[in-house]
């Protein structure tokens, strides 16, 4: 028997995972950052469910708002789109 609070939890976790996947896969970096902020926001709601209001507030202001703002400034000073090329394993693994 699944009660309603539990459905909300399942839906929230699902939304969070989907947002994370989109944030990683979108080629438009601005959209990716918005996805990342969405992950943080949903996570902060989950923190509320887990009885951690302090953490939820901090995550919403610092984790979502400030870090997204800093990311957007960085995108403004660099480039907005990921260039399309074949993908290889990260370069710091190789010497």
């Amino acid at each position, binding site marked *: 028997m699944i009660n309603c609070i539990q459905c909300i*939890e*399942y839906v929230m*976790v699902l939304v*969070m*995972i989907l947002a*994370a*996947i989109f*944030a*990683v896969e979108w080629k438009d*970096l601005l959209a*990716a*950052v918005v*996805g*990342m902020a969405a*992950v*943080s926001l949903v*996570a902060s709601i*989950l*923190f509320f469910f*887990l*009885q*951690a*209001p*302090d*953490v939820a507030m*901090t*995550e919403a202001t*610092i*984790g979502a708002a*400030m*870090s997204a703002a*800093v*990311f957007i*400034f*960085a*995108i403004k*000073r*660099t*480039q907005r789109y*990921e*260039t399309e*090329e074949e*993908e*290889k*394993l*990260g*370069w710091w*693994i190789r010497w």
Partner: protein
Amino acid sequence: MNIGVYYFGAISLMLIGLYAILVKKNLLKILVGLSIMETGVNLLLISIGYIAGRSAPILSEGIGPNQAVDPIPQALVLTAIVIGVATTALALTVAINLYETYKTLNIEELRRLRG
């Protein structure tokens, strides 16, 4: 193996972030992955501190010491969030400097340019 939905969410976020770090080539994308991974770790810590049926550790409004969840992981996560944002800001600064030198954020290109 019975793990709750919160543990599942936290582990998934960490794996998605790690995937981005390992596979993606755009530096900003890698940093997005790092940030997602940190969120996952924070969620994991908070859900370890949760105790079923108890409320937030604010001891007014008739909540006694035996009716509150664990405050320590929450204090730890406060620290971890701030540390995460500090790392992100510094990393983005380094990325801006890299872009101004090489005019690209693609790590393969960076390797080639440096020779």
